[in-house]
């Protein structure tokens, strides 16, 4: 009873915070049908700003800055107001220009904003925790219920604040002119506009209120757990999104209910299930996935939210992007890539030879290692590009396939053959080559398996579900210690070798990578330049028309997941053997987002794009190290990537090498 009662109290507190953040997602989704992934970061900013205001001084950008040392009850509303303003600015700059763009554009922009804000926060406040200062209310002694259940005064404050703000919002939406305008805009934006509702102001207001709620949730969360950290918004953000989906995204009472239900399930699951606390996040994601599979409209939502208008970033060129001066800027790049994309054999062979020649031109091991990373990430991006670029399905769980390949070969080589059977890895050098294929096939199978439940989903829901899968795979890799050695990772994976000749220096590894890339792209081009590739692109451009032309869209989506998974698996095997060490840290959502950004940066639906993106980004990462600004704040580079991606979505959604368009048939 004591344990149960304490869990219940904890669940209600957590539920209040989830509910507040879930309302942010729901409110904005209701009005603009966008899952604003950046709410997790606004949540985090709320916490940081509040703490900063409460302290006498804070280290900002590595410098000690004086702060007003406000009392909590003043600092909290100020930080909420600041974050609400940031939310509106983000909407204006990143989402408003994309209002008539294909759904993928604002979704990618939201992910980019999320990266931007998180990296910026790391640059400003540093990568360490900032602890929450104690204040009058938090110092009061806890209230003891039934002799054994502890409830702090602040917990009661949290609950009351949450209840009051939800009630206030409900009254606002129901009773005021602006609130009713919001309901109308949510129902039908165009019709609302036609009857004279200032839709842009209504949307800005939704972002204002939503960001405020996210910040409030962040402040309460940081207070409850006693700290703020730049990545603290990620998991609660996902939980809040889960809660919003659970309640029925778009519905405010639904979000409140969803937050509570999720917190109860999660808290009790962690409390009572064996090894529950290790898997508490996995429990939430499993709920999210089951929900999207069987009842995507949630508890109180409406089913029609799971749809996506036709059109793609590639096909709708020039229909919304403001090319203008920026367009001219890209003209020389376009001319270059146009020749490349035409698939001229001479050019491709020249490109391949250049890549090989680099191994001998560059004598510096450091830069050769950088090039290995370029090839690895280029290949990963190529795999993701099959799913996102060619088929138009936003996949945020792609790293799972990379992990499958890496773990497969590492477990086989080290944990099974070496540790169980005493086989020396050098004796079975050939197994690496077998594993390249076996790992690819295994990951392709995983791709189909994870792809199957997503087939009915589109747009945002698809992205959320794949994200859930990716996270579950990572959580399992971290916690199933018997299988994967958990966070310690697996060491001593042998480098590739050929007939006893070790290929262990960076030059050899780079050459192996280039050959692998050439082989995979060669195979991919044969599939893409056939009826299969046409079916993929047809699905991306207009799914219903593809279906009407006889394309079994579900089957071809699975083929795309399988092909992408194959790439991921093969690269995973190569990665494990070239790094000689793997751990779950390589397979995070952030990596997945980074890979996605490389595809978008380079050019969706092209062969060369993923490599262009990888080369551009990884070389930039290194070159930037030479500047003192980036030396002091390395995360600023990722903030720059986020900003670049937002700009790309607004001005040139098709990426750098857009003109390297792949012909979808054999002969010219």
């Amino acid at each position, binding site marked *: 009873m004591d344990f149960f009662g304490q869990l219940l109290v904890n669940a209600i507190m957590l539920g209040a915070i989830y509910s507040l953040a879930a309302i942010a997602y729901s409110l904005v989704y209701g009005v603009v049908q966008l899952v604003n992934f950046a709410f997790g970061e606004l949540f985090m900013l709320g916490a940081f700003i509040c703490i900063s205001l409460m302290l006498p001084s804070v280290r900002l950008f590595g410098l000690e800055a004086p702060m007003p040392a406000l009392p909590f009850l003043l600092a909290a509303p100020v930080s909420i107001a600041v974050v609400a303003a940031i939310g509106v600015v983000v909407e204006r700059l990143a989402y408003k220009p994309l209002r008539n763009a294909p759904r993928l554009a604002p979704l990618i922009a939201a992910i980019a904003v999320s990266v931007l804000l998180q990296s910026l926060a790391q640059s400003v406040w540093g990568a360490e925790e900032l602890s929450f200062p104690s204040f009058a209310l938090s110092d009061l002694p806890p209230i003891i219920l039934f002799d054994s259940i502890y409830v702090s005064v602040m917990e009661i404050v949290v609950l009351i604040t949450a209840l009051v703000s939800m009630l206030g919002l409900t009254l606002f939406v129901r009773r005021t002119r602006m609130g009713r305008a919001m309901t109308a805009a949510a129902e039908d934006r165009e019709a609302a506009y036609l009857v004279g509702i200032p839709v842009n102001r209504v949307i800005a207001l939704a972002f204002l209120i939503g960001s405020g709620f996210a910040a409030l949730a962040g402040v309460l969360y940081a207070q409850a757990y006693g700290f703020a950290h730049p990545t603290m918004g990620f998991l609660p953000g996902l939980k809040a999104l889960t809660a919003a989906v659970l309640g029925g995204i778009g519905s405010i009472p639904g979000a409140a209910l969803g937050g509570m239900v999720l917190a109860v399930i999660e808290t009790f699951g962690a409390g009572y299930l064996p090894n529950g606390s290790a898997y508490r996040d996995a429990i939430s994601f499993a709920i999210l996935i089951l929900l999207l599979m069987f009842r995507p409209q949630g508890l109180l939502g409406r089913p029609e939210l799971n749809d996506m208008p*036709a*059109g*793609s970033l*590639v*096909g*709708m*060129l020039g*229909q919304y992007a403001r090319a203008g001066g920026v367009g001219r800027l890209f003209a020389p790049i376009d001319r270059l890539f146009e020749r490349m994309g035409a698939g001229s054999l001479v050019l491709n062979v020249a490109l391949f030879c250049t890549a090989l020649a680099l191994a001998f031109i560059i004598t510096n091991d450091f830069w050769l290692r950088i090039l290995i990373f370029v090839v690895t990430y280029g290949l990963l991006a190529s795999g993701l590009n099959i799913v996102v670029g060619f088929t138009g399905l936003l996949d945020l769980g792609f790293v799972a396939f990379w992990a499958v390949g890496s773990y497969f070969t590492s477990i086989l080589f080290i944990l099974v053959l070496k540790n169980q059977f005493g086989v020396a890895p050098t004796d079975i050098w050939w197994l690496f080559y077998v594993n390249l294929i076996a790992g690819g096939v295994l990951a392709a199978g995983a791709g189909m398996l994870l792809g199957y439940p997503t087939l009915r989903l589109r747009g945002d829901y698809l992205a959320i579900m794949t994200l859930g899968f990716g996270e579950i795979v990572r959580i399992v890799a971290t916690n199933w210690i018997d299988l994967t050695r958990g966070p310690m990772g697996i060491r001593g994976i042998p480098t590739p070798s050929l007939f006893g000749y070790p290929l262990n220096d960076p030059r050899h590894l780079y050459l192996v990578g280039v050959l692998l890339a050439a082989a995979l792209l060669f*195979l991919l081009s*044969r*599939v893409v330049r*056939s*009826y*299969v590739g*046409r*079916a993929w*692109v*047809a699905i*991306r*451009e*207009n799914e*219903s*028309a*593809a*279906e*009407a*032309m*006889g*394309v*079994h*869209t579900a089957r071809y989506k699975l083929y795309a997941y399988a092909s992408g998974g194959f790439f991921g698996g093969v690269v995973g095997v190569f990665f494990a053997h070239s790094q000689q060490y793997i751990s779950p840290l390589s397979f995070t959502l952030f990596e997945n987002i980074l890979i996605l950004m490389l595809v978008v940066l380079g050019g969706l*639906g092209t062969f060369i794009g993923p490599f262009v993106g990888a080369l551009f980004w990884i070389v930039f990462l290194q070159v930037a190290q030479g500047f003192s600004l980036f030396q002091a704040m390395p995360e600023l580079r990722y903030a720059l990537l986020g900003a670049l991606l937002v700009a790309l979505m607004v001005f040139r959604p098709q990426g750098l090498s857009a003109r390297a368009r792949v*012909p*979808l*048939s*054999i*002969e010219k």
Partner: protein
Amino acid sequence: MRPLLSIQDLTIVYGGLVALGSVSFDVDERAIHGVIGPNGAGKSTLVNALTGFAPISSGTVTLADRHIGGIPAHAAAAAGIARTFQNIRLFAGMTVLENTLVGAHRHFRARLPHLLLRAATARGEEKRWRERAMGELDFVGLTGQAQASAGALSYGHQRRLEIARALLLEPALLLLDEPMAGMNAAEKEEIETLIRKVRERGVTVLIIEHDMQVMRRLCERVTVLHHGRRLADGATAEVFAETAVQEAYLGRSS
């Protein structure tokens, strides 16, 4: 003549609203069969139901004696029904030729190994269907546009491309959902000629169109829908002469 398509008591209910109520009619082989009716009569619902885009509540649909009621859209295409859309749905990011080739999707037989090795079977069928696609583009009047981007075509050309794409399915039945919407008289006449040529190739055509002049000239038979019910069905001249039809659709005064 034997009917190619036979619709029996087709009923479609959307959340309590009867979009089609017990509609029955036959479409003869190699006919040009019109479906007319005021807005909201259920014409597009009918096309959607025949092509797997709308769930059927009850009734049967047979194509050449094969039951096709309620099959998914890709299966309807595989059964030999091709369609165009009221609001054009092309693959904007593909070239004109690639768009057309998607129509041939169901004819491709090469498996993954054939594709990877670019075996003779894969090369051969790709070449064959490219040639066929070029032929269809000539047929609809898009000669020389094969490499253009589909999104960049003019409105009229987009309509023609949709028809070329549908023809590459080699359908037994072609459903045209308002193929002349938004066109001037001259353009309409060109599409009319095109539809006749399609029928001469042996393809049965079911067409929805609002221009009564065109329909009177083009169709051998028409079915009139009104509020989801079949109001009339028969030879064009007879149907147009019925007073009920005139009242419902053409207005009382005429």
